[in-house]
């Protein structure tokens, strides 16, 4: 039984993908902010990768200084609005809130954060501006959380900044990857427009940097280059039948969904391969698009999944069924996907072993592979001196973000291997400071 009927209008889409963390109104914000204890050396701040002064901004909201609250948030994190909605707060700030130890609901920090920032974004109030022009220029590749955060911080330090983005819209996976029930496109883009109006960096859309020549030009023209390129396409599985119609990568499927909403068709029975957060998202999204059956197939046991527990709960909540200890061996079908042939597995001493002779076919008409994003190793190999670790992540100084090629700096998924928006935003701010230190030498 489908939990949701297939949405055919924007309104139905919005209903099926209703926001998990809707923006608070003033009364709600007042009540919630009243609960905050203003802890000393607050554990919530420590748990926030961008170190937002949470008790301070909550106290500001409580005293009616929403603008000051937004400033506090943005001073630590340029994706303050998006983070309030998309951060896995259950394992970050809210997970650390002292109320948990009393078995009391933690403060809804994320929603308070989006409340204050939404207000300044809507009013367009000027809170920040570029620093005095220092005559130096930095090129930023990628307009994701890392790239845009670096651009803001660099502008505030007085650098001229040009951002080059392969796609047509800013914010990277925030608008192309994150589940639509966490944040809407309008919200994401409104924050981007707000930041650009405040800091005045240039963004060149549809401008992928992909050749040695293009890189050489940037090296020539700019004093430093920031890499905020994130990760690449969904990893190939290398299975027979993977090229069948309706077998798609999760990142690609979600990107379509974010851009085209209910115009994206989903199968009646969908199998999602993977056990990470992206798999949970893709499964939930399929269900909300009206799929009758959604099966989440994972190679190992349930408790070995990489996904956060609350993400799995969310998927279960919309009718997704888990199928564990199964490895796909073939995508079956004639042109179109008709099923997945699995083999059962067991985990021994931490290793997954297939159980011979246990193959079976699970019928379906769509397969979504949520088996991780590839690293952009080929592109990165065009940068002399830049080194990658064994997992394909850019190697860079932990405090300055400087890579093996001193002119290049990196942050975000391309460096950390794939984390959250908040990590990219926090790292990029620090790296911008690293660039500044390097160019001020």
């Amino acid at each position, binding site marked *: 039984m489908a939990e949701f009927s297939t949405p055919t209008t924007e309104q139905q889409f919005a209903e099926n993908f209703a926001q998990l963390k809707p923006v608070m109104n003033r009364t709600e914000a007042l009540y919630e902010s009243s609960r905050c204890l203003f802890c000393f*050396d607050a554990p919530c701040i420590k748990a926030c990768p*961008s170190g937002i002064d949470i008790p301070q901004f909550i106290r500001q909201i409580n005293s009616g200084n929403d603008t000051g609250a937004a400033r506090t948030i943005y001073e630590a994190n340029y994706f303050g609005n998006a983070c309030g909605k998309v951060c896995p707060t259950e394992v970050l700030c809210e997970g650390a809130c002292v109320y948990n130890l009393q078995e009391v609901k933690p403060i809804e920090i994320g929603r308070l954060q989006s409340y204050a920032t939404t207000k300044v974004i809507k009013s367009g109030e000027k809170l920040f501006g570029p620093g005095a022009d220092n005559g130096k220029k930095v090129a930023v590749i990628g307009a994701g959380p890392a790239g845009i955060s670096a651009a803001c911080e660099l502008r505030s330090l007085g650098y001229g900044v040009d951002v080059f983005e392969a796609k047509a819209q800013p914010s990277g996976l925030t608008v192309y990857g994150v589940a639509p029930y966490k944040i809407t496109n309008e919200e994401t883009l409104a924050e981007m427009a707000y930041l650009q109006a405040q800091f005045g960096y240039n963004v060149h859309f549809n401008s992928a940097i992909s050749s040695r020549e293009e890189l050489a030009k940037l090296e020539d023209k700019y004093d430093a280059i920031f890499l905020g390129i994130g990760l690449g396409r969904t990893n190939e599985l290398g299975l027979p039948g993977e090229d069948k119609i309706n077998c798609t990568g999760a990142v690609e499927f979600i990107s379509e969904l974010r851009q085209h909403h209910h115009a994206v068709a989903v199968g009646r029975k969908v199998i999602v391969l993977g056990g990470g957060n992206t798999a949970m998202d893709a499964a939930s999204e399929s269900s909300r698009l009206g799929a009758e059956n959604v099966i989440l197939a994972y190679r190992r046991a349930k408790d070995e999944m990489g996904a956060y527990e609350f993400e799995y709960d969310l998927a279960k909540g919309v009718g997704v069924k888990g199928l564990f200890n199964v490895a796909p061996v073939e995508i079956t079908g004639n042109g179109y996907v008709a099923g997945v042939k699995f083999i059962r597995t067991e985990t021994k001493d931490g290793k997954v072993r297939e159980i011979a002779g246990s193959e079976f076919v699970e019928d379906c008409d769509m397969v979504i592979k949520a088996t991780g994003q590839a690293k952009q190793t080929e592109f990165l190999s065009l940068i002399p001196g830049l080194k990658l670790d064994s997992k394909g992540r850019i190697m860079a100084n932990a405090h300055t973000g400087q890579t093996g090629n001193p002119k290049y700096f990196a942050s975000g998924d391309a460096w950390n291997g794939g984390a959250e928006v908040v990590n990219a935003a926090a790292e990029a701010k620090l790296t911008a400071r690293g660039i500044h230190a390097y160019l001020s030498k």
Partner: protein
Amino acid sequence: MPDLSINFAGIKSPNPFWLASAPPTNSGYQIMKAFDAGWGGAVWKTLGVPVVNVSSRYGGVNYRDKRLVGFNNIELISDRPLADNLREIEEVKKRFPNHAVIASLMVQTRQEWHDIVRQSQDAGADGFELNFGCPHGMCERGMGSAVGQEPKVLQMIVEWVMEVATKPVIVKLTPNISDITEPAMAARRGGADAISLINTIQSIVGVDLDQFAPYPIVDGKGSNGGYCGPAVKPIALNMVKNCAQHPDIKLPISGIGGIENWRDAVEHILLGASSVQVCTAAMHFGFGIIREMTSGLEQYMVEKGFNTIYDMVGKALPNVLHWEDLNMKYKVTANIHKDKCIGCQLCYTACEDGAHQAIKLNADTRVPEIIEENCVGCNLCSLVCPVEDCITMDRTDDDTQHLTWKERTEAGTAPTEFNDEKAGGRHHWVPEPSAALGKERHKTLPGKARLYSGETVLPTEA
């Protein structure tokens, strides 16, 4: 079941809960509704001379998300025709003969007082409350607190009233005075049967930050008003106690001020009140709060074995002493119950910055530790701790000694110099002033500073 009924200076009431003279007692309709809901009595909205009110009239004090912890008004006495009020008093008394209906009065001349007392008596009022309290509007006309602040005038007016009153007379006192027992004594000298207190306290509840005007705002301007509601209870309790402990006043007291549940009422009673009056809470939540008040009071009386209200009136008075009579040998020390602590460290920062640097933090735990030698037993930490019973103040003296300041003075052992061995703070350890500098910057600076000081741990693994 305990007996909640009272006989207050001759005014009988099925329970001690009365509505104070105020908007909830503005009409027969409201008072019937209140009696129907369970209130024992009502002091009619003050009757007197013709008045005109302004709009707006009320201002509130909110604390965070809590509305009306304090309330103020610039309203005057009843603006309804006297004849209507008198007719409705009669109607209410007919329908509720066993409930207390008290006429609150405020006029100027002797003749006016005589007239209005007689008229109310004829209408069937069970007693009178003389309003010498209103701190705005009426005092400018020589009534209300203008009378309450002048014991001689107050006494004279009480005498006028006593000349014609055949029913008990209560004098309602204004708190806008330095010693509440003075007008109380004047009431006694004038022959009053009882006192009630407190009326509202002169106040400005807030200032509009955009209009630069005090609340409530009347056409861009404001005026001082009268303050009441939960916030005034501590002031009221102290004044009730002062009157109850005074050796010469010896009048029944109707306690008023900040009462909104049975606990507040019991507190007033334990300090000497034998009836209680409520205004703000009824204005905020309606008459329905009476059910909680009576049931709470009943439950309390059952638990304590009190059969009548009089078993508890003034029961706390013997324990309210002057400071100089308190036992200086008694000592409590803060004790943190680790298992309950949620690690907010509010106790730490409160004692560190606001008290005696008697709490420390240790590595690898968020549970603070009390430095016993430094704890003076001030209670602050236990007051800020958000968890019930997490910090208890435990007795640490051996309960064998008793010595008061008065006894020390009398025995000539009170300290006379700062370096006196007997002075309290002498052996108390206080850190060097310069030890404060930069001590907690890494913990109190905003996130940005943490980020740049490299404290934020960056993820190296995905």
